[in-house]
């Protein structure tokens, strides 16, 4: 059986040798958040742990063409939902990788903002490790965001856009898998759809209070400075 598959695979590859690289499509990411870990330690956290699911699963969708993409929430696993819901379900990330900037509609503590700024500048360290995600061979790269938060990303050079979930970008290909240990969250592509992509849907959100992301970040940092690690995670969630 295995041999047959192998031969079929070879034949398939042979026939697509002059392969077409993917420059537009829709990727579904399965996002898993470890709620117990993100609560941290302590009396409060221990009380909550019995009452909330250990891991919540959400699904987000990235619609991209060669230099732009829109990333947004699609659905969640109801069995693992948090009782008080998820604030980010109406958020929209619009990234213009060509011009190196973004427009995001973000719920920030209950207020809808329209944030504009240049994309995060991430220093990516390329590694030799690889892993297959959604049928694509992905290479591992390690980056640091917000000065100290490690991001482990897996990107494929078979998809030509330099994008990824949220505003992660800057690798020579699309990021299909991300793990951010300090945010206790992982993003893994489960589906890549290359046909039937409506590129007109890749447009910047318009609603919300306009603000430059870096300016809002200063205000948020000031308001959350006494919140400890939970506040830090909230800030990262807003500005990633």
């Amino acid at each position: 059986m295995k041999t047959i598959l192998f031969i079929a695979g070879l034949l398939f590859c042979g026939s697509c040798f002059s392969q077409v690289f993917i420059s537009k499509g829709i990727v579904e990411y399965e996002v898993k958040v470890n709620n117990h870990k993100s609560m941290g330690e302590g009396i409060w956290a221990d009380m909550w742990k019995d009452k909330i699911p250990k891991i919540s699963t959400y699904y987000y969708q990235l619609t991209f063409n060669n230099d732009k993409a829109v990333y947004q929430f699609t659905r969640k696993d109801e069995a693992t939902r948090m009782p008080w819901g998820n604030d980010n379900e109406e958020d929209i990330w619009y990234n213009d990788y060509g011009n190196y900037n973004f427009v995001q509609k973000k719920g920030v503590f209950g207020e809808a903002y329209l944030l504009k700024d240049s994309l995060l500048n991430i220093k990516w360290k390329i590694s030799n490790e690889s892993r297959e995600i959604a049928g694509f061979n992905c290479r591992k790269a390690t980056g640091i965001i917000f000065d100290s938060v490690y991001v482990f990303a897996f990107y494929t050079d078979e998809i030509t856009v330099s994008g990824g979930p949220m505003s992660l970008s800057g690798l020579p290909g699309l990021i299909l898998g991300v793990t951010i240990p300090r945010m206790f969250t992982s993003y893994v592509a489960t589906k890549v759809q290359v046909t039937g992509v409506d590129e007109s849907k890749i447009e910047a959100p318009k609603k919300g209070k306009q603000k430059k992301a870096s300016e809002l970040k200063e205000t948020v940092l000031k308001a959350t400075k006494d919140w400890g690690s939970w506040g830090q995670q909230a800030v990262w969630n807003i500005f990633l």
Partner: protein
Amino acid sequence: MDNTNSINYNPVTMLKLPALFTIILFIFQLSISAQTISGKIVDTSGKKNISNAVVALLTTTDSVLYKFTRTNTEGKFEIKNATSGKYIMLITHPYYANYIDDITVTESNLDLKQIPFVSKSQLLAEVIIKSGSPIKIKGDTTEYTADSFRVEANANVEELLKKLPGIQVGKDGTIKAMGEKVTKVLVDGEEFFGDDPGIAVKNLRADAVDKVQVFDKKSDQATFTGIDDGVKDKTINLKLKDNKKNGYFGKVSGSGGLPANYNNTAMINAFKAKRKMAGYGIMSNTGQTNLDWRDQNNYGGGMGDNMTMTDDGDVYFTGGGDGEDNYRGGRNGIPKNWNGGLHYSDKFNNNKISLNSGYKYSKVNSLGNTTIFSKIFLPDTSWNNNSTNKTYSTKTKHAFNLTYEVMIDSSNTIKWTAKANNGTSQTSNEYYTEAIDNNGNFINNSRRNTTIATDNNAITGTMLWKHKFKKLFRTLSLNADFNWNESKNDGFLLSYNAFYKGGQQIRRDTTDQQNVRDNENTGWSTKLAYTEPLFKDAFMEFSYAFNSNNNANNRISKVKDISGKYLTILDSLTNQFKFDRMINRPGINFRYNKKKVNYAIGSSVAFNRFVQKNITRNTSYTYNFMNYFPTAMITYKMPGNKNFRFNYNGSATAPTLEQLQPIRDNTDPLNIYEGNPGLNQAFRHSFSASYSFYNVLKEKGMWSNLQYSTTNNAFTQSSRIDSTGARRYQTVNVDGVHNLNFYLDYNFKLAASGLRLSFSPTINNNQNIDFVNGRKNTNKTTSYGLGLGAGKYVDGKYNFNIRPDYSYNHTTSDLNSNANIDYWQLSAWLNGMVTLPGKIELNSDMRIEVRQKDPRFPANNNYTLWNASIGKKFMKNNLEAAFGVNDILSQNRGFNRNFTSSSFTETYYNTLRRYWMLTVTWNFSSTGAKPADF
């Protein structure tokens, strides 16, 4: 098509790099202009142009991506603006082996011409191998003892792996064991986070690891079927040291002050993984009768059980109503107490089974002095009533609790809890009361001494079974409760009562009797609840509750016979009753949970059957009631953390057997309660609306709440007071009782100073009705309040809070306008903390109470309670010393003012006055262990 992408580092990032690097780069850029690197990628067969291949430049020092581009259709690429230096060039393409080469960019443009795409050059990482320490090979598992391989303090597991022979860690973080790539790293057999091997080894400290085990993990399918499909993952399992999960911590604290004040505590918690064993002891005569919240968690049974969360994510806390808390504020005298507790809890079988048990002991002796002054108003007359009560009590209590919870599978959990208590007490009272008319003449007076010994025993047990069906949100739960308690009282009553008319004694009686009272209660209740998801976000809930309660009450009153012993049974006060209650309560509720709007509507009906049997007289009464409990709720969530909520609750209250048919009691001959067999159930409608918002970024918020309730057939008292001041009263029904409350709190932070201010007005209006000597009396009270607050918190330096509350009270009674009263009151509360040089902490708090004087009560009730303490921590916070003075001004007063339609009352009770104490606390712990915090 132009496929060229390139990353330009913007200057902001540059600044974040180490300064030296920036300077070097700066000089570099000054002297050398940027170059273009170009080339063409060709298939080794030489015939094919390879498009879309990624050409990336990595820095040689740490393989950071510098610039990248993709080849065009001709296989050509160009990387512009590359600064001179050495780079690793990485060319990748899905169908070709990676090409890796070192390149050097000089001052001129670099044309690499044709690059043949076959090379398999690999960035082979340097491998550090050292050998010669204990390694065990068990079957196909190789096990390393971590401590045998030296690593630096605080090193991570990656550093440890580098030292293990046979294991290689590449510069890029790749781990190889016995020459094969490791694809999984487990921690204690579980995936640490995801299955990325790099994460566990970088995030775990090496000194937490006991053993490193290397083996081939078969695929999950193979493990399940037992058929080896040949798929194997090289796996490393990190077994953690037990002592990272073991340890103890505790504290010993002693406080003492002259003349004889003390407050000593000792606590310890020893834990091993999930097992917790804790104990504590308290000895105090200054009011500490229980563990505080934090200590309760660390040294007692924890608070987790007191928190419940609804499906909507609302959280409720239920207080752990320990009897010892009754002494707070000195209401029941000043306690002298000895407490102790032991706790044991553990989790088994992958946390699926949990056990929680505990034992508590307490002994409290307390001495209380209460003085009451009241003024009674009747339509045609008024008089004063004064009383004093001196109480001494000693109470001992033993309490056991046990909780056992099993998660049978992902859809079934069962929880059992059992509690048993034994309490004994001896109480003696010396009570004196007098009624004096406006001319200063006695109307009556009474002196009463009682002693009573009680013995209480109680057992409660509950079982809760929760089942989740396969269909999401379809659930069934069954809750069964059992409770049994008995109380035995043996007491003596000696009272002298005298009645006067026009200052002349007209009657005098004496009561001297022994009262023995036994009460036994057995109850069962079960509730079955079923939730059915109807459609998206909509749920139907059905419930059925059954409640049965049997109560037996025996009472024997005896008076002295000729020999002077309490042997003659007093028939009129000796009786044996049985009360049986049975309630069936079906209910239905519809719930709709949308993101922006939630609502619920439902009702339940209770069918009550009460049977009261007088066994002594062989009579029986049966009462049947049906009660409705309608509820409705709606919540709107608006953008900006704004919330609006409306709530309606209707609830019927059936009269108690005591109200219908009380057992005759003559303890207080001046206040005699009578039954009312014609009493109907009361029905209360209550409405509440609340609105709130909180703006996190501006740090301002508001909470407001308006409540209104009105009661049909409300229970109220009808009193008949005779000319001797003796009162006979019963419960009757009345309409027109209502209550209105308004509360608002607005708070914000001044951005410039960081000062937090709050403003909170309140309004309270209520109307109560009662009957005095057959006349209806309507009593209306309105009060307005205004609270202002200011506070600031600077971490590690100082903090303070000031909160004055002003209120104005207006009360009218239509029975006797003398009972009308208007007065104002000011309560202010201040506290602050300053950290002085040398880590000395100064704490102080103050409470000021000022009330408008009432001409009817001459005493001055104003007081200021001021406490202050100074403390310092030594030896890495392990030792704390503090000196504090409570009630520096020695003005503390136990005081309470109360109004009814026909009376108002001021109550004074003894409290602790000024005392000082020196406290020394020693915190101890094994390495790494520490008490949990918030």
